[in-house]
């Protein structure tokens, strides 16, 4: 336990940790704080109002959304694609515009998802790929506004099952996962690099303590430290909800449950990647790999941000609604989170093996070198 506290103290007083805390708290608050208002307590009554979007399995809604967007983009000759997750504006030649129009007409005839994919595939090719019209990305059009009845059911779930805080906690978990998927890796690599900079490794490696105990203590201390800004923001957001909803039956633990159940597994993985990367490369190479993983996850997640769990390292639920989707897919999310927790343990096991090999002089780090000419 004493070693844990010494590691914790060293970790939480490092410059990398201070910067991580500032960025994490800032990122979460900037994205979640403005979304917290008194609106959730108001029951929907207006049958003509446009309510928030929900995920739908209705093909016609998907098709209508896709074709409406394509029609608009075609009319303006202003398309957007998302190579590596970054938005890119695309304009087409007159000839290509004609082909898009033909594809649009063909897509109008499509009466199955497969038919629609086939019709819109050429549009994606004309745009250079990574567009919303790519078969794998069409799912993002599978949304529609709630009806009044659905909005009422959604409201009931928010008030009775989420108890308001649970709704905000989902948004908080969605945003917090984005940042803890990437930053802990670099913080951990910097933390481990301090060993090399201080030339302390041979001294520590020659001591009697077994690698598993040492690594697990270090890992636990790091994870505890990395959770601090997450829990701090959870506390701040909870305070804001309490102030905005006086007298409401709130779930006071909702933010902390979201932090533990939803955010923590992502953080466990990105932290383990940091340790594994240090053991594997002995430099900052692993951070580049984690950026790649993060970008891919973000791109896949962006197909449907208001409720998208599957096997995403960052499960998405960037909405204060679509509550029934969350409860209907809760077990999917739980399996996802359990899976990533296990993956973090596997990464930690690999790190142990590599550290043991290093301790015995059998492995000195895998270094990427530019190819010789």
């Amino acid at each position: 336990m004493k070693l844990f506290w010494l590691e914790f103290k060293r970790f939480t007083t490092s410059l990398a940790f201070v910067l991580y805390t500032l960025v994490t708290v800032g990122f979460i608050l900037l994205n979640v704080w403005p979304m917290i208002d008194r609106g959730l307590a108001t029951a929907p009554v207006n049958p003509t109002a446009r309510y928030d979007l929900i995920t739908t399995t209705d093909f016609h809604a998907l098709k209508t959304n896709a074709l409406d967007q394509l029609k608009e983009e075609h009319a303006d000759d202003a398309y957007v694609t998302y190579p590596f997750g970054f938005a890119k504006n695309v304009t087409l030649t007159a000839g290509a515009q004609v082909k898009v129009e033909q594809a649009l007409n063909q897509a109008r005839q499509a009466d199955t998802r497969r038919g629609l994919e086939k019709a819109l595939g050429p549009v994606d090719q004309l745009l250079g790929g990574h567009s919303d019209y790519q078969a794998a990305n069409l799912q993002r059009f599978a949304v529609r506004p709630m009806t009044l009845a659905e909005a009422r059911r959604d409201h009931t779930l928010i008030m009775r099952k989420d108890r308001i805080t649970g709704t905000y906690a989902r948004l908080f978990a969605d945003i917090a996962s984005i940042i803890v998927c990437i930053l802990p890796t670099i913080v951990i690599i910097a933390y481990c690099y301090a060993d090399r900079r201080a030339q302390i490794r041979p001294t520590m490696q020659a001591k009697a303590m077994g690698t598993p105990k040492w690594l697990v203590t270090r890992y636990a201390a790091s994870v505890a430290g990395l959770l601090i800004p997450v829990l701090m923001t959870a506390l701040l957001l909870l305070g804001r909800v309490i102030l905005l909803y006086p007298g409401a039956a709130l779930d006071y633990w909702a933010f902390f449950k979201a932090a533990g159940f939803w955010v923590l597994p992502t953080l466990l993985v990105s932290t383990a990647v940091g340790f594994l990367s240090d053991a594997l490369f002995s430099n900052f190479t692993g951070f580049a790999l984690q950026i790649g993983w993060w970008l891919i996850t973000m791109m896949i997640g962006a197909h449907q941000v208001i409720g998208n769990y599957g096997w995403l390292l960052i499960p998405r639920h960037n909405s204060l609604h679509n509550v029934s989707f969350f409860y209907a897919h809760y077990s999917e999310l739980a399996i996802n989170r359990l899976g990533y927790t296990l993956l973090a343990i596997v990464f930690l096991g690999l790190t142990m093996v590599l550290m043991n090999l290093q301790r015995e002089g059998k492995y000195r780090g895998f270094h990427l070198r530019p190819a010789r000419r």
Partner: protein
Amino acid sequence: MDTIQINHLTKHYRGKDTPALNDVSLTISAGMFGLLGKNGAGKSTLMRILTTLDQATAGSIQMCGIPITQRAAIRAQVGYLPQNFGFYPTMTVSDALTYLAILAHVPARDQQRRIARLLAQVNLTKQARTKVKALSGGMRQRLGIAQALVNQPKVLIVDEPTAGLDPEERIRFRNLLAEFAQERIVLLSTHIVSDIEATTNRIGVLDQGHLLFTGTTAQLQTQAAGHVFASSLSVAELSAFKARYEISEQIVQGDTAHIRFLATAAMPGASTVAPTLEEAYLYLQSRPTRQGVRQ
């Protein structure tokens, strides 16, 4: 049985033509033992193998009766001060020692008492709350020796511990080592002959992975007896002389240089003198190649 027995130890690094250690056999018993050699002689490789941080390509080692392959048991009884010892700069001396005491499996109930005693022994009690980055080079090395002793090891291995220290700190550090050698094996690796001269008379000399000599300093000096001479010559002759002989000392006074040098046979005009340890070491190292000792 407090000895280190090294039998036919060889270490090849991948991609290197010559071995870092070549069939080294050596027995080290309790007390201080000096391992002398130039940079790159293979001393640090041997230290790393003895501390289980590297593995031999061939050969075996028994440390106090335990084979080196039993790493956990070896680590429990070895204290190691590596070359370029460092620690987290923002940690206090006390925390640093506590940290390493935990890694060395010192029981929690003994830690504070043992650390206080070690700090007193290495004269760092006043610096207990000082951050490591605020320590001088000498203080840092003393912290290094304290951490190496924290598990009360039977074997203390110190690699080039006095490099970079000022003369006062060097003497203080050597005295500490001598003190600690009274109750354990201390293996001191260095390229500084005066460190050996001041601390022990039992040495081994490594050169390019070969163990050139093992025995007492007196035996080494005896080997060089009759091969060290003193003479005086004009400063103008000095360059030509240097090309032929290994000069171990030169004092220039006006146009005259008073020199001590190594040669294989007596020379006219030069008087035979008793070799110092440094000269005996030079003689041993230069014996196969230098013209001065081939004559």
